[in-house]
């Protein structure tokens, strides 16, 4: 398993921790997650599920590989440094960050796609518990 670089972030299976218990005595959130099925937890439920999950990563990989071949190692390194720098500008953990600089770097500020319309994280109906998340971030918990 390649543990270096972006390849280690690629998802090739569905993590079963996504199916988490909501309360003390609940085993499965039927309303939000649907019926349980071992197959759904291990295998993708749609042929495009994995390619879509990894789409951004694969795009970055291809672009960085091309840049490296054309301009040398410094070009992707500089870009990745900028990505990392920009990813550090975030709001408090329970609030949604717009990631505007990240969008500009990727060129997504001039594009609109399904991710802007469907399942927009800024319009999510659930929010984490603010105090717990702050305490976790500050290391008090």
């Amino acid at each position, binding site marked *: 398993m390649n543990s270096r670089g972006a390849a280690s972030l690629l998802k090739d299976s569905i993590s079963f921790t996504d199916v988490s218990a909501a309360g003390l005595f609940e085993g499965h959130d039927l309303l939000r997650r649907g019926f349980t099925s071992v197959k759904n937890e291990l295998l993708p439920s749609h042929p*495009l599920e994995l*390619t879509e999950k990894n*789409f951004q990563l694969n795009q970055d990989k291809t672009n960085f590989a091309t840049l490296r071949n054309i301009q040398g190692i410094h070009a992707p390194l500089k870009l990745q440094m900028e990505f990392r720098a920009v990813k550090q500008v975030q709001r408090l953990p329970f609030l949604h960050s717009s990631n505007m600089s990240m969008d500009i770097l990727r060129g997504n500020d*001039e594009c609109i796609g*399904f991710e802007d319309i469907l399942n927009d994280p800024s319009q999510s109906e659930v929010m984490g518990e603010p105090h717990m998340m702050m305490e976790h971030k500050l290391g008090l918990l």
Partner: protein
Amino acid sequence: MVHSFCSSALLSLPGSSPDTSSPWDIAGAAVWGSGTHSSQECAGTGTRHSLVRARSTTRALPQGQFALPLTSSKENLSWAGLVDGVVLGADTRATEGMVVADKNCSKIHFISPNIYCCGAGTAADTEMTTQLISSNLELHSLSTGRLPRVVTANRMLKQMLFRYQGYIGAALVLGGVDVTGPHLYSIHPHGSTDKLPYVTMGSGSLAAMAVFEDKYKPDMEEEEAKQLVRDAIAAGIYNDLGSGSNIDICVISKSKLDFLRPYDVANRKGDRFGRYKCEKGTTAVLTENVAHLELEVVDETVQTMDTS
């Protein structure tokens, strides 16, 4: 199940002027009458379009099983003061299996003021895809400051459709006029595109293509071209179950845009010549026999009803 019934035909008619050589032998871009080529890069050229767009609002079909049967598009070019551009045509039937879901749907979608797209396949897919690409193209043209090109829309569409590996059932015919001239592309659901002088797509595509193959010739006038497209779509309407109702035509040229909806009503519903109801007393009463029905009350219950 998605049924992809749509046919679009495009005819590209190169100019016939003998002294000028066109860079494309299938799509010779004629400079409109006047010798100057106004680049028309700004978006503020809306006045050059005679925009007759009556968008139908009856597309409230929730299910995914749509067949947009027939669209046909044609390109008409000519030199020396005649119209050069693209003629797109489509029928107006949307089916859900063997039932007509929408008798008068609009299959010619707006991409940009100079680019229109006929869509076949799943209605929601074509609608959403063309709207998404239209938005992206608008952002792109604001960023470049130029009028968008047909090849840009083509590239955006094919990259998106290939990403979804054909699961987005949108078969499109994209036509428009930009600074480089008139162009026509056909785009299949898996992401392959063809650039051709005339194309048909959908279930009625074979019927329409037969008409094109027979009657298409280069250097057609605008009216001739519109008539040819109309004939091709009518062939699809009459010979294919997935196509029907009216014929919509969209003529895009450098100087104007005509969105003719409907251009022709091929399937006309029959006119009723009279009232076919029977009045009371039509049937003569010969005898009348009244029999009393004896009913006795067996059980009686009272139930309170909450009417608050």
